[in-house]
């Protein structure tokens, strides 16, 4: 169980190490933290959506309905939690937010966010990734850029490899 309030040491933003990282993450489902701005569990955020300094934290098992997606658009930041780095549901959530529901704001990965997951996260639509505290930021940047090619379309790449090949031939 993570501490109920987490300040992240290193934030990867848009492919680089972010200089500033003001958002803290609170996992407390009952009470709002004192600090602002804060990412809080979805239920709390829904109940306090007038507070512009709060952002929602989606649990990995969140069922992303049309109405929920509509509400999330009110927030400039949506965080998706990775309770374990092996829990891959967050990748689908990010793609759905971005591709199906055209969420325009920032999508942030929080929780068990490790160096070797960052490349996949970015491709699924995460703009920012809050590295777990023990992760080395220089490893993270290297891992993020391990590949110059990809086989699938994703949130960034909208032309299929088979289409590109035909264009190049």
């Amino acid at each position, binding site marked *: 169980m993570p501490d109920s309030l987490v300040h992240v040491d290193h934030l990867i933003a848009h492919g680089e190490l972010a200089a500033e990282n003001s958002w803290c993450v609170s996992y407390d489902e009952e009470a709002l933290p004192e600090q602002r701005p804060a990412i809080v569990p979805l239920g709390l955020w829904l109940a306090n959506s007038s507070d512009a300094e709060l952002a929602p934290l989606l649990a990995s098992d969140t069922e992303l309905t049309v109405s929920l997606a509509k509400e999330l658009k009110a927030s400039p930041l949506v965080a998706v939690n990775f309770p374990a780095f092996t829990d*891959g549901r967050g990748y689908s959530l990010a793609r759905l937010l971005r591709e199906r529901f055209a969420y325009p704001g920032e999508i942030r990965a929080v929780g068990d966010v490790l160096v070797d997951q960052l490349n996949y996260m970015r491709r699924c639509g995460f703009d920012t990734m809050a590295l777990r505290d023990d992760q080395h930021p220089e490893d993270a940047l290297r891992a993020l850029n391990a590949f*110059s090619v990809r*086989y*699938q379309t994703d949130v960034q790449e909208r032309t299929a490899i*088979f289409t590109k090949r035909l264009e190049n031939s």
Partner: protein
Amino acid sequence: MYRYDNHDQTLVEERVAQFRDQMARYRAGRLGESEFLPLRLQNGLYIQRHAPMLRIAIPYGMLAGYQLRGLAKITRRYDRGYGHFTTRQNLQLNWPDMDDVPDILAELATIQMHAIQTSGNCIRNTTSDQFAGIALDEVEDPRPWCELIRQWSTLHPEFAFLPRKFKIAVSGATTDRAAIQVHDIGLRLWYNEQGELRVRVLAGGGLGRTPMIGDVVRDDLPWEHLLTYLEACVRVYNQFGRRDNKFKARIKILVKALGIEEYRRRVEEEWVHLKDGPQTLNQAAVDAAKAHFPEPDRRPVAESAIADFERLRSENRSFARFVTNNVTDHKVPGYKAVTLSLKRREHAPGDVTADQMEAVADLADRFGFGEIRVTHEQNLVLSDVPVDELEVLWRELEALGMANPTVGTLNDIICCPGGDYCALANAVSIPIAQALQERFEDLDFLYDLGPLDLNISGCMNACGHHHVGHIGILGVDKKGEEYYQISLGGNATDDASLGKILGPSFFREDVPDVVDKVLKVYVEQRHEDERFLDTYRRIGLKPFKERVYA
């Protein structure tokens, strides 16, 4: 054969560099054991009973001669000079040094090979029919479609951390030789009455501790939508598959829990948003994939050569036996597919030495356009042999010990590595296979029994596919002792069925006697020309049970 372009080559080379970096961080203590685990598994690296094990991907079982030569070199340099072909058409090295693995992967990249996603909770190597492209009953060559699926599934950013491993098989023939009904996703290519290619999509089949036959999700998917539909199928599984219990995490449990109608509803609902997206295939893309699998430049075989072959066959009993059992008809008259047996008593089923690999690569160059296929029965196939060269090929195979005329018989046992190698196993399996091969080696007896699948697994993960053996043998552990459970009536092909357990399990040394009793019941009860499986289906388990436990 599929040939890499710059894109494919760059990807595998960058993958090697990535893994080298991960390994270095692991050795430097910057990557913990549990965090390195899924990374190494997705690069085919297991830690086994005695040593690491490296599983090398052979996409849909297709190998080129130069690749097999490269593999031989790798097994000599980094292992003990042999490899093991698996039921998923892959090749395993049993004794590599863990720190050599980045170098092995780098060597594999030079022969357009890799170990990506041969293990771990991701989409595994797609498997297919070993007679793809040459089978008489084929309606659509599955290989280009498998290749499109390979590319779609390789390093898929959304599906690298699924609830469990995920296996896809594709068949394009009227007879299923890819066991599509016992895969997480099974795909059948077929043509409708209008002559349009359609895909039947099955989901939720699988073996392991809860064996199930897959259900049809969509019978008539237009081919353009293959990849987007697969994406919907896997996304629903990723989101709703169970993650609380490893043993209930496969898609079959989800499909069973939801019911096929509800699973289908969710897939279709998801697919509406993916349909016609950028992953939608078009004719040009498929034609480009098909161009990688051209018809080889086969010389015409004269009618007289076919007559000569028939004469040789009638004159030489040994050759005739080989032809009957190991040679398969081909869509082109004058050509045959030849199955090279990897089943010899002195080796584990599926094992091949480096010398044999090189010799087979040479034979493939001489007789088969430099192509080799790996079968899920753990044999190799040369797919394009002119009949007037069959006899010469047979003599060469005899010399290599790969001409055992037992393909499809009881002696052609499918067998996992078992307790001799595998850390998961409850019991050994290779010695069981060897004991059975020794007991039942009389060719006349084997031929009299007819087609018979005997499959052995050393644990309930069922790598040896025991559930779908006509006779299945499963090693079980009872208070630290090895026992063997026997099941009857399994089948992996069109009318797929799961074997039923005969009764209480047996001591290791009793297994050959028990199998012998089962066979005796069959021989006594069968109708003329009735296969073991059909006799079993007609008379049921009871007569077998009565004899075995008498």
